[in-house]
């Protein structure tokens, strides 16, 4: 999908700027700040328990501004990550300076794989953040977000090595004839003369075996 959607800025009744994409308003045309505030209020209990939030869709950022403000009531260092497929929307939002700086990180682009190959993004997701959709963005980019949320990472060794830290990659130099990480480590254990680095990977394999994973999570 391209990002040739028509973006426009209009004034809400309250005087605030609002973003309109392909004639669809991304915020309340009456008062976008009040709308975002009400949304945060509904999430108050969840925000209280969670200092990590993943927001789906940026708009002009009123909802992000209010969420960040609300989070500060309960948390010293709240962290917000935003996913927005349309890079043009991000550029525009940045011009309006509504999205708070510092503890908000924006990830944009249409390649789902790119998100899931980013170590920082994965570390954030693995902390199980509260997911808050920006409904107009979600509706507009429904196909993208559906794919984003139902993504399945490849278990092929060739894909796995793409995300490895550069220091670890050389340990997988003989990867071509193996299809999965488990197979690679199993075969490593059959080597005639094991070296120090081999034991590092064998240790990882042994840890995986002890974690009682379901079929397919490491084996295949």
């Amino acid at each position, binding site marked *: 999908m391209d990002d040739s959607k028509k973006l426009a800025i209009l004034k809400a009744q309250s005087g605030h700027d609002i973003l309109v994409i392909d004639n669809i308003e991304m915020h309340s045309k009456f008062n976008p700040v009040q709308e975002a505030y009400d949304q945060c209020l509904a999430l108050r209990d969840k925000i209280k328990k969670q200092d990590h939030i993943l927001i789906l869709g940026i708009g002009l950022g009123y909802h992000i501004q209010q969420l960040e403000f609300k989070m500060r009531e309960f948390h010293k260092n709240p962290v917000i990550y935003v996913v927005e497929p349309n890079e043009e929307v991000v550029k525009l939002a940045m011009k309006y300076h509504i999205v708070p700086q510092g503890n908000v990180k924006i990830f944009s682009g249409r390649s789902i794989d790119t998100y*899931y*190959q980013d*170590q920082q993004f*994965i570390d954030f*997701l*693995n902390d199980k953040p509260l997911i808050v959709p920006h409904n107009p963005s979600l509706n507009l980019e429904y196909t993208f977000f559906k794919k984003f949320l139902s*993504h*399945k*990472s*490849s*278990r092929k060794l060739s*894909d*796995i*090595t*793409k*995300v*490895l*830290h550069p*220091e*670890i990659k050389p340990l997988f130099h003989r990867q071509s004839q193996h299809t999965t*990480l488990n197979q690679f480590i199993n075969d490593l*254990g059959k080597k*005639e*003369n*094991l*070296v*120090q*680095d081999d*034991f*590092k990977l*064998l*240790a*990882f394999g*042994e*840890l*995986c075996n*002890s*974690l009682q*994973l*379901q079929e397919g*999570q*490491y084996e295949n």
Partner: protein
Amino acid sequence: MKTKTLIVNLEDQAGVLESAYLIAERVRKYPQQEIYMLTFKESKHLAHMISGVQRVFTIDQDRIKSLLQNDLYSNGFAVNNFFKNLSLVFHTEWNIVVNYSTTTLSKYITSSLTADRIIGSYTNEVKENNYSSLWASIDDIALKNKKLSPLKSIHCKLKANNISYGTNEPRVKINENNNKVAFSNLNSIRNAEHTDGEAKIIGINISSTVDSIFSLNKLTELLEQLFSTPNMIPLLIIEANNEQQKNIVNLLNRDFENSLLSVESDDLALPSLLMNIDILVTSDRKFLNLANLVDTPTISLFTSIESLFRAHSQNTDDISIVLSGDFSIYNIYLCIDSILSNIDLSSQLRVDDSNFFTIKKDNYGSFLHLVQGEGYKQDILTSLVQRYYITSQNKNSDNQVILEELFSTFSSELSTWALEQKKSLIISTKLLLRSLRNLIRSKQDSSFGSIFMDDLNKLLATKDKNLITSIPIEFFEFNLEKINSKSAEENLIIMEHLIYDLKTSLRKIMTTLALIESKNRSQSLNKKETRKNGRA
């Protein structure tokens, strides 16, 4: 310059605490060393509590598991995480690495490190287990799968580190503030109006006690008994943020009109709390080990003899009970009273299905002394003779403490037991000799190979029974599995040597049995003689 020592301890939380004995001794013996520990993240706070540990590295297995479990993430991130956890450990040049655990994971990690010296077990380049000493191999091969382990694993580890057992060195770091608070609070309980200031506080840890061993009714019965005794104050110890335990205390408090005392403690405050009570009743290994480390007497409760032998207390003041059937709560009360009043337990106990043990020590560490109970006598006896066999083999001298224990506690059972053991020893020896014969014949006629294998398997199967022969057979099996020569002829020669070695070990066991029997006979005769002289 200080030497850098890494302790690889991938045990559970109780096991991490138990390593404090080893670390305290290493610090005393080798003051010029910096001690680091590698453990799982969930044990980090406990590792930091151990005196002498300067830095703790952790493997975050929950994080790695969640990265592997979630389809969203590539498995590569789990690999990254593992290497990130271990980055400093991998990049450091260690003077000494002590592999405290005996798991395959800890062996692989140990083998992946750069170290001048490894103590414990590790894997070599052809994937065989290697050991730094005989004690390290006993720990891994002979004790790990034993039903009733004749030695505690920690004591083998101390020996493997060439460290003697028993120290008064501080083993855990005590937070001064926590200690002051615990001391002041518990003293004000002791000095409450209805006591004369001599009251003893009986800590009861209900973390798993209620679930696994005690019914709520039994616990109520024990509390009633303690309440009705002047100067005994029960104190229920709740783990921090444990709602289930809080609910149990609330339930109990209904019966006691809110008069029960309870305290909520996290792991960091627990040493101070345990130090300031007079006795702890617990079924939780972490609590037991921590109480041992701060020298608070304990009564530890177990549901199986196997778990008792694996995890029993180390302190000679303590009592361990394997609860069974409809056990008498009054006996637990008597155990408490016996520790507090220093009264001999054996004359006090009522007969029930449970087994009661106190702790004794020889030069190799603590062992269990059966005070009352009939259920496991034969197994306990076997375990004691195995201990005698291992320890006497090692120094080529009698372990007199164990001999004394055998004659004083099992005098009447010893001869019947020895007869049974001899029978099985003869069967094992016959199987062994037949195996040897068929092995030699198989060199000329390969059809004998399968008969040889049958006999060998029958022989190996005997190690699973709790017999005196099982330890040398475990070692034999371990060495058999290591045979990895390229030629069949060479394999047969190595096998033949191993069978001869086992034959020698079985002969030594026969000698041990004969020695024990004859000493038991002369002890009995001496006793009879003494009685006769007394009457005259």
